[in-house]
């Protein structure tokens, strides 16, 4: 299972990459494997102000719809439109081209409270 070192993780299987006071958010490799073939992504609204833990978008596989929760608070500034045409990017490249949205960090300290790669790996390990 791929758990990149440069990211922080939410227990609900989202990741965030912090760069220049902003964050890029997606779902983890584990999440995409559990979801199976993603066939539709309902992207968040640009400009939406969200609080950490709030449901911001929905990812749908053939079998089920899954809510995605934002790991941090802030304003959504950009969404990955490529996912509308090619939702399978979430399966093929969850940490790269399958990113979902970018967000300003209104409470940057929240990032440090998220799981480290090691803690997230532990979470995955204990689930099995």
């Amino acid at each position: 299972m791929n758990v990149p070192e440069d990211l922080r993780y939410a227990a609900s299987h989202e990741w965030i990459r912090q760069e220049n006071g902003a964050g890029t958010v997606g779902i983890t490799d584990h999440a995409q494997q559990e979801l199976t073939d993603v066939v539709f992504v309902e992207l968040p609204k640009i400009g939406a102000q969200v609080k950490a833990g709030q449901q911001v978008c929905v990812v749908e596989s053939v079998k089920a719809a899954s809510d995605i929760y934002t790991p941090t608070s802030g304003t959504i500034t950009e969404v990955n439109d490529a996912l509308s045409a090619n939702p399978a990017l979430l399966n093929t490249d969850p940490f790269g081209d399958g990113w979902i949205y970018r967000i300003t960090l209104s409470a940057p300290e929240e990032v440090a409270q998220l799981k480290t790669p090691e803690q997230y790996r532990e979470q995955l390990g204990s689930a099995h």
Partner: protein
Amino acid sequence: MSNLPPLKQTPLHDEHIRLGAKMVDFGGWSMPVQYTGILDEHRAVRTNLGVFDISHMGQFFVSGPDAGTWLNCLLTNNVDRLSIGECQYTFLLNEKGGVIDDLIVYRIEESRYLLVVNAAKIEEDFAWMHAHLREGAHLENQSDHMAGLAVQGPKAAQLFDAFFGGSHSRPARNEILTIPIDGELYYVARTGYTGEDGFEVFCPADRAVKSWTDILERGASFEIKPCGLGARDTLRLEVCYPLNGSDLSPETTPIEAGLTLFVDLQKPEFIGRARLLQQREEGVTRRLVPFKMLVKSPPPRAHYGVFKGGVRIAETTSGTLSPSLNVGIGLAYIPTAYARIGEEIQIEIRGQQYPAVIEKRPLLRPNAK
């Protein structure tokens, strides 16, 4: 959680685990929902070949001098129309004409029939049939002793020939062969639940693993893939085959489901007949119809609201993204006034309405023979 009985396993359970299947609870059975992926497996069946474990399904044998007469009093279709080696799709109804189960009845001998019923309904079907048993008919439940494999896809006939070429000619569509192999009887039927050409094989449970591995080995040159319940559902929905418990229930009749082809109202008597006759004369208030989304939308799923002119008129009974058509599809019982091909409706998905159109069935017509 701890009060739930353990999930039942088919004889192929260890094979599924070995192949890396994702297992789910399906009506009390631990079954593979997918191996490599639903889309991948769906495509395999539409273009080449797939093999499904259907050992969870039930097998009843009905025999005796009055077997046919008795079955005709319980089932909607007419078993007298079957020659030996033929089968038909049929319904077991309650007194109100509601569906207890949909099943296939195969006439395997002059006075011996094989009934293949839904996994979740084995006990209920058996209890119902047993309660209505008559002299001259014998009913046995062989479900625990038999396994089932469905080989489906346009290359199914080639695989059959690779197995039996020379010794047996292929059964025709809706026919069944009884083939002795190493001292045991195998039933090989030209039936399936995908709309593709294909075979369903029923054999003793202790032969399941060998049959499964043989089929995968011999099928390798036809690019066969093991397929799970996920693909089984998208495949059947594209060709509008109903799923009992979703599209059929004790509250819906075959007439409402648009499946009158499998009901013989000329028969003098069968349970539920009076209600069906009444519906045929008075008309039904709703009909099960397939629909297709008109725009890109989240996949429709079961129990989503169906709207017309802002008014909620129904709810979906099944829905999915069609991997072949790449658009959302589904089934719903629509009030008769709107249950017309070409009628535009709206499906509510998470509070937003998306346009859809009622289509004729099947939504997809594969190149099945």
